[in-house]
């Protein structure tokens, strides 16, 4: 309902809505333009061709876009903690998490989802895959799990803001930084970095591992084949941990009262 209210409020200024949605679309599209520019000079990056990189890009951008659409407003929490307006949310009979997520719900973020889906669609027409029913089934599961993993990162970042009130940029490093990282093949990055985003912050499960299976490429870090099917489990685990962090953060909240 809160989200619906914000949607109506943004639709009140239609021209502005169209412009900002286009802006969001274009802003994310530039990431991909950079990749295309790179491929005007080379044929492969980290051993991946342009359609294969586009496949990684599309999966990451679509998952991240959906998570951003759902709860991307989380980075406003720091400001609410700082100026004390979080109190208003605490006294309402609705879970605080739902309210913070719906706070300034921005439909214009559809631009990002749209752009990711378009790149993914283009990649699917170009990339060579021996499709099996299992691979087909894995696709929607991957996007849904990836979205859940990014949501968990958003929530954990918000929980962190209870402690570090004006450090919302740290969250950007993991959210926007995470999706940028996943848009490139794992072969590009140093082993330690890949290990970090596999075992510590399990971003690799958003697209690298399932994509390695679908594309029939070697797995990063020589992981066993079945890990391509674990994203739903990893996503569930991440969400549970993020939920715990959120509750701990909320309990530690002390109003600034001004």
């Amino acid at each position, binding site marked *: 309902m809160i989200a619906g209210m914000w949607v109506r409020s943004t639709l009140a200024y239609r021209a502005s809505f169209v412009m900002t949605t286009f*802006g969001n679309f274009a802003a994310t599209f530039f990431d991909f333009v950079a990749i295309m520019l*790179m491929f005007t000079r080379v044929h492969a990056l*980290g051993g991946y061709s342009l359609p294969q990189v586009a496949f990684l890009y599309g999966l990451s951008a679509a998952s991240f876009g959906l998570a951003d659409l759902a709860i991307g407003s989380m980075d406003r929490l720091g400001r609410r903690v700082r100026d004390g307006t979080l109190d208003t949310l605490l006294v309402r009979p609705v879970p605080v998490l739902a309210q913070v997520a719906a706070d300034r719900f921005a439909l214009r973020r559809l631009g990002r989802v749209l752009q990711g889906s378009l790149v993914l669609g283009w990649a699917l027409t170009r990339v060579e895959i021996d499709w099996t029913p299992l691979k087909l089934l894995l696709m929607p599961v991957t996007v849904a799990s990836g979205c859940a993993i990014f949501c968990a990162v958003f929530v954990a970042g918000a929980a962190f803001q209870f402690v570090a009130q004006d450090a919302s*940029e740290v969250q*950007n490093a993991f959210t926007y930084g995470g999706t940028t990282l996943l848009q490139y093949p794992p072969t590009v990055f140093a082993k330690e970095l890949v290990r970090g985003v596999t075992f510590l912050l399990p971003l690799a499960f958003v697209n690298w591992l399932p994509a390695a299976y679908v594309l029939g490429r070697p797995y990063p870090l020589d992981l066993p084949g079945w890990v391509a099917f674990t994203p739903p489990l990893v996503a569930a685990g991440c969400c549970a941990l993020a939920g715990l962090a959120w509750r701990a953060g909320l309990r530690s909240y002390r109003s600034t009262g001004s």
Partner: protein
Amino acid sequence: MGTGRLYVAVATGGFRRYATYRAATAAGVFTNTVFGLILVYTYRALWDAKPHLGGYDQAQAVTYVWLGQAFLSTLAIGGGGVEEELMDRIRTGDVAIDLYRPADLQLWWLAADLGRAFFQLLGRGVVPFVFGALCFPAYLPTDAGTWLAFLVTVLLAMVVSFGLRYLVALCAFWLLDGTGVGQMMWLAGYFCSGMLLPLNVFPGALGEVVRALPWSSLLQAPADVLLGHADPWRTYLFQGAWAVALLGLGRMMQSAATRRVVVQGG
């Protein structure tokens, strides 16, 4: 109080103001470092596949990445300088107070923005750059002359950057809400300054066009001087010409705007 000293005071104020937000600065340093890391690996893969792309070797490409991260907030390439506050003041009508001051509107905001830029350079720029230079084989010139020439280009880049953003802010006199223009500026800044990819890697005519635009003064020009790829004097001329043109245009827009100013609110 001499006018020169007045503007120095405004600039110092701008510097101090941004210096207050320590946690935000630390968070910014962290984010710039993370993004720099991701970019460094992708650039290294690119230069592995094609050595000497755009005339840079791999170490030079690494230096370029960390310069970009150092300049992102210093030159407010994606926006986020004083223009946002000025836009707000125009929208709410507070700008009328600024117009009463015995100081020039444009120079006042230029001084405030330079103060901000110097703080961001020291507070947010130096740490990611040093981190990058220590952790990856980077190209660093050894003679002081090159560094000095580079610092001059950085100063000129600050003025060009302000010139661009001042124009965006003045649009608020006509549009009231400058969000759309700001966003377009953000896109142009990212794409045309070389934040996405060095401009000398852009193919063919596209590369020539983006190198002639004012945004190339922001990252590409200082980087090329530091990397020994451009003659400093020609770079100064290029940046200086754009600075004069943009500030002049800003002055014209400013006088057109103040002649028809209608104060909001009351």
